[in-house]
């Protein structure tokens, strides 16, 4: 009886000291859509038709590169009387498409890591 009461008291004391937050930016990128765009065949128009408007367009002389991204940030905090712990993790889905001067896709690269963002307190992951 006393033991369980102490456990409940401990939980009640700790609960208000916990903070979890998550921030998402843009929609996650679709690997299948990205891989369907073939260098040497697809054009800038095909890329925009498949993925929508890019986040960024970079002019590289007569050539260009389009950037698509989406990110997930997860934060967790534990504020006890004496100690404050905070852990933050940000991961991103990123894709770049490089075009020649005729707007033909020459290279593409994608890193899809947004789903790997995690809630981690400093003492647990070290």
């Amino acid at each position, binding site marked *: 009886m006393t033991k369980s009461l102490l456990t409940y008291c401990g939980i009640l004391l700790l609960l208000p000291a916990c903070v979890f937050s998550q921030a998402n930016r843009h929609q996650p990128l679709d690997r299948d859509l990205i891989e369907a765009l073939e260098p040497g065949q697809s054009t800038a128009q095909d890329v925009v038709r498949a993925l929508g408007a890019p986040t960024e367009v970079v002019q*590289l002389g007569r050539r260009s590169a389009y950037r698509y991204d989406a990110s997930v940030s997860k934060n967790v905090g534990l504020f006890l009387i004496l100690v*404050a*712990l905070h852990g933050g993790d*940000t*991961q991103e889905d*990123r894709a*770049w498409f490089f075009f020649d001067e005729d707007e033909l896709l020459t290279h593409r*690269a994608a890193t899809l890591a947004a789903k790997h963002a995690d809630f981690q307190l400093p003492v647990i992951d070290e």
Partner: protein
Amino acid sequence: MSRIKKESLAPWQCQLAWGRTVGLALALCVSSCLSARLAHNHEFEEPRADGRLRPGSTGLEQCLAELGAPLLVREHLDGALLAWGWSDERAFGLNLSLPLDNFYSANLSYARSIDGLRGLVLFFDDAWRLKQMRRGYLAEILPDERTRPALVD
């Protein structure tokens, strides 16, 4: 001596003494005399460059296959630069505050952190051939933005 004293105390008296000790410790803590902060912020994964990228011979395709999508692409002189960045910041802080007088208190704090976006920058010529690689803190290894004048068609 203390054993004899303890044994002579009734159980309720022992509990009372223990309660006083805990109460005093809690009072010290609640008044925030000493506080500590521990933080860890992680941003993006470090790409795995296995040493197969060779300036003068490696092309853009192989670099992208090895390192994945870059954080930044920018025109640089006659070619371009691509940058990858990641960070793993850890911070630890201690704060001690002592009331000295009615209107004065002493405050001592200690903080240690390792921060900054680390990165890898690759420079390419106009044929997308790797010219140069730099590794370090991104703010230090990224050159100033210099683009050639816009083309007039």
